[in-house]
């Protein structure tokens, strides 16, 4: 996937100035770079250009009044609701179907947000900090699950381990 001539400014601050990006169309790609370099901005720009993608926000954005299972079925057509147990198993939330978000830990809530994004489905997954608060062994297992889905995944995150587990790393450099 290509993005040409991307310019993004927040007031006076220029995040991208006529930049080109080439995003791999397969496997797991880690978008890395220092804080504030524009990782989230690039993900959002990609999402705007590819509405068939599924986007995971940096914040969980869960509905406090919906259960874990309802969060998934809310974004799925009825014909795909049989996939709920598989998706919950992928993010290791099996058994939490009837829990409400406030009954989950921070890491579990993050995994629920990820599960909802996966339940939405799409041509590719754009995941902003999917593993915030998730322990490393679990991160690795979930990454393997994501790889098995067979769709291109672009994710942001921190830590050397993550770089070692993905298929490719795209490093963003600060503007100027």
């Amino acid at each position, binding site marked *: 996937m290509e993005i040409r001539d991307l310019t993004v400014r927040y007031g006076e601050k220029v995040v991208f100035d006529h930049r080109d990006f080439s995003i791999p169309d397969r496997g797991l790609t880690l978008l890395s770079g220092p804080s504030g370099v524009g990782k989230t901005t690039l993900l959002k720009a990609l999402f705007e250009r590819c509405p068939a993608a599924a986007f995971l926000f940096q914040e969980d954005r869960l*509905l406090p009044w919906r259960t874990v299972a309802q969060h998934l079925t809310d*974004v799925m057509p009825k014909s795909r609701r049989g996939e709920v147990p598989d998706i919950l198993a992928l993010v290791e939330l099996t058994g939490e179907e009837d829990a409400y978000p406030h009954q989950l830990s921070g890491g579990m809530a993050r995994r629920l947000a990820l599960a909802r994004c996966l339940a939405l489905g799409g041509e590719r997954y754009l995941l902003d900090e999917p593993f915030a608060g998730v322990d490393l062994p679990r991160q690795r297992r979930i990454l393997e699950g994501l790889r098995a889905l067979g769709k291109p995944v672009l994710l942001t995150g921190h830590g050397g381990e993550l770089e070692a587990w993905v298929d490719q790393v795209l490093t963003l450099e600060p503007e100027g």
Partner: protein
Amino acid sequence: MKRWVKRVLRVLLPLAVWLGVWQCLAGWVGLELLLPGPGRVLERLAALCPTPLFWRAALATLGRVFLGGALGALGGALVAALSARWEPVDWVMTPMMKVVRATPVASFILLIWLWCQAGWVPAVIAALMSAPVVWGATAQAIGDTDPQLLEMARAYRFSRWKTARLVYLPSVLPAVLAGCRTALGLAWKAGVAAEVLCRPRRALGTQVYNAKLSMETADLFAWTAVVVCLSFAVERALWWAWRALDRRGRRWGHGDP
């Protein structure tokens, strides 16, 4: 102090203090025509309670105010929802609601009385009093809905109906119900005031007026006490409804809805 003792005292102590003050004042005035004592009012209340007139008047007033208040609340919430959806509706309805809110209730009573039968006036007044309050609460709550959740709903391709059902409705419901409590209190007072002015055949307000006309001050107090008790009962019923929702809100992790 045990919890149940404290709860009983919280009800009985203020009751005893204020009844005592009332009795002292009545004794000091010494004229039942001006200020009857609580015993005499209770006596009249006991005499009125078993009469069909009492129940007919109480039920008619309750029905009128509740019907009018509920329709007004529903209308106010609907206007707020439509205003949030279509800006021109907001342009048209906001000044209207503000005018209704600012207009003295007495003016409304007299105007509505020109156009409606006396029996309908309290219901219309109750509706007019509750609509702007619920409209304000609903509009505010819709405006305060978490923008991040709304962005999520768009990104996850929620339909308008699904966004309304899963995001807006649970977000605004506690505030709307709190608005309804305030609105019903206002509707109750205004509705009874309309009854006093218009005097429908069966109404608590009419009985209040008749008692005043025949200088039966003890009856005037007794009918007023009925109005106050019914107001408390309605307020309490709504409070229970609100608390049930509040508990649900806490289960949802809302804190104070």
